[in-house]
């Protein structure tokens, strides 16, 4: 118990130290979070009327972001499988980064859901036994359960490993391995359940398609790992953490498969809708062509299509996949592409046209944008803090001091541009 307290105190000291770049970055995030907080206080005061959601389009930008981020969170499993099921060493060293990303993404997910509900003060109605969670009837109840389970598993495993490393112990495998294995099905379950949440509504033909779950999984395995690769590059460049090219290439390969499956499934969906040409086509028409003169999402979805296809070519071609510049480009493209397609592109056409075929064209309001930005900043803040602690621990720069009480901090700066990776042995100027 005492050890935990010392560890906790040590991390607090650690996160307060860093380079100017680190301080600037954290300050920047804090400002965005404050703006988001201000936007939320306005929304709490006046109600969700400050958003552009209305009865016709009753979910909007918040839920779109939520849906996308569930995918990002689920993708951490892609690092866990090769690392812990196949014991592939290069990835095993970085798997903990994936878990921390999952934790940050789930935090954002929970925040997006919280800001979307009309009565956040009644959140306790969702707590089983205390409130009245409608389990197993409601898929939203399932989502509450699996999201929190997934958060707990990842947080426990990551903290447990880091905590043991801090005390220079080998983490107890008997504890971590079952949890890590459990995290694989639960990663799949958070995405499956989130897809079911839409999928199970007969009222919304755009979502009521059995291909939706595999589409969700495929797109998650594009966006999540793409974000991971970007993080790997940043971490490699600005911290002392070493990440092998081999590991990055492995993840890139997985993305190539995932983009292919994602495009294939989307194509299958489009064929079915356009060829049968039933009344249910309306939502797809709205998304891809515009309907009755309303076409706000059309440029976005085509941007997403172009990005996804370009990224697919970049990932498929070994030359561009192995080139770090084109690889980073591909990651950015597929991340944005999936963000559009699996965010607004998935949620909004479910409501347009609405169940009585009214068309209310939705675009997020200023408050929605600011608040969402604040939540993204919070997520990145959480992720930065987690990395600030995790990376020095993994590097052996942050561990218990020789007296067994205080902590040794070897990495005072954290965010510093590293010398060329070609020469990884050279010591950074500290």
């Amino acid at each position, binding site marked *: 118990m005492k050890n935990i307290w010392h560890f906790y105190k040590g991390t607090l000291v650690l996160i307060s130290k860093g380079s100017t770049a680190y301080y600037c970055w954290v300050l920047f995030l804090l400002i965005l979070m404050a703006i988001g907080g201000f936007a939320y206080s306005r929304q709490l005061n006046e109600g969700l*009327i400050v958003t552009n959601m209305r009865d016709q389009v009753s979910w909007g930008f918040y839920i779109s972001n939520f849906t996308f981020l569930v995918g990002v969170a689920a993708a951490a499993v892609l690092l866990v499988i090769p690392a812990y099921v196949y014991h592939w060493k290069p990835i095993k060293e970085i798997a903990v980064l994936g878990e921390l990303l999952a934790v940050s993404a789930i935090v954002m997910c929970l925040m997006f859901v919280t800001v*979307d509900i009309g009565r956040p003060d009644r959140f306790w*109605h*969702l707590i089983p036994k205390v409130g009245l969670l409608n389990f197993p009837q*409601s898929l*939203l109840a399932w989502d509450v359960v699996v999201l929190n389970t997934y958060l707990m598993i990842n947080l426990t495993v990551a903290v447990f490993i880091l905590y043991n490393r801090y005390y220079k112990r080998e983490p107890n495998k008997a504890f971590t391995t079952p949890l890590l294995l459990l995290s694989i099905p639960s990663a799949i379950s958070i995405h499956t359940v989130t897809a079911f949440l839409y999928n199970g*509504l007969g009222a919304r033909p755009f979502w009521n398609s059995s291909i939706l779950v595999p589409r969700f999984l495929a797109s998650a395995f594009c966006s999540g790992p793409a974000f991971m690769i970007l993080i790997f590059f940043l971490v490699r460049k600005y911290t002392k953490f070493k990440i092998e090219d081999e590991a990055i290439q492995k993840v890139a390969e997985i993305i190539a498969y995932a983009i292919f499956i994602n495009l294939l499934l989307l194509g299958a969906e489009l064929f079915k809708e356009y060829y049968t040409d039933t009344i249910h086509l309306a939502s797809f028409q709205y998304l891809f062509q515009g309907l009755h003169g309303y076409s706000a999402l059309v440029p976005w979805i085509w941007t997403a299509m172009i990005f996804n296809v370009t990224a697919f070519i970049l990932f498929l071609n070994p030359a561009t996949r192995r080139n770090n510049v084109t690889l980073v480009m591909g990651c950015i493209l597929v991340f944005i592409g999936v963000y559009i397609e699996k965010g607004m592109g998935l949620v909004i056409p479910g409501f347009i046209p609405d169940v009585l075929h009214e068309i209310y064209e939705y675009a997020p309001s200023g408050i929605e944008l600011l608040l969402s930005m604040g939540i993204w900043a919070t997520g990145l803040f959480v992720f930065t803090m987690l990395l600030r602690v995790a990376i020095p621990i993994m590097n052996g720069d942050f561990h218990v001091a020789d007296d067994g009480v205080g902590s040794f901090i070897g990495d005072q700066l954290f965010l510093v541009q590293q010398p060329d990776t070609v020469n990884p042995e050279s010591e950074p100027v500290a």
Partner: protein
Amino acid sequence: MSDIKKCDGYVLHKSRRRMLKGLAAGIGLIALPGRDASALVWEEFFQKHFRELSKDELKGVIARLEKDYSKQYGKQVTVKTTPPIEGVRYGYGLDLSRCIGCRRCVYACVKENNQSRTPQIQWIRVLQLNKEKGIDLSEAEHYYNPATVPEKGHFYMPVQCQQCEKPPCTKVCPVQATWKENDGIVVVDYNWCIGCRYCMAACPYGARHFNWAKPSVPSNEINPNTHYLGNRPRPKGVVEKCTFCIQRTREQPGRYPACEEICPVGARKFGNLLDPESEIRYLIENKRVFIFKEELNTQPKFYYFYAT
């Protein structure tokens, strides 16, 4: 800080759910207007689900609400909790061959059920459809406004809650804040709803409406005769819907719903589906009847029919 502590202590003493109290109070402080956190606010905050209230607790809740509403609207507002009548399952009939789309029902409903004027909430939506196309929703006009109705070549289809026998909305609610009563009416506990709007996504009829802002009803227009599960004033951030005028129809004798009463062409019919002599049974057995979006198997108890 000291009076916050006092409130906290009060609640702890009052309620059974001790475990939760500290945590919820902490979060609640952030979410609620903190300064004037009176005992009433806390009582409301910790109010149990309607169906879990004991008789004494229910009495307390009703007294609190009546006092609150009466003060707010400057006249005596009563809140009933009349239970379902045994042996009754409500059914509604709407004669599409008669409806002329005059929207009298829309506004009678707004008035009877204390729907917000701004932002505007209306539980009934009347669609203008094309006679040549039939019930093709993609041809539906929601905002028609000619000098007189009916317009040539058109017919009208009012849509409101269909009181499904298998409601998709109650199934998806994560906190059981909405459910189907034994007389078939789908109701919402406005004090339990968390405002996630999943039910709105699930409803195939657009029958559920959200209080995007604090609802406003002028004091002189408030209908003071209310039911807990029906037309009592709603708070901000919860979902509401048609309840077949539960505050009227559960009485014995019970008045017809407001929309039925106002309809100038007598297109609206209402009665007990379990009574073979009722007008609703007669029209189901003798007229051409259809239910809206039958393929979704929601089994509405709202029957559109053609008397001629």
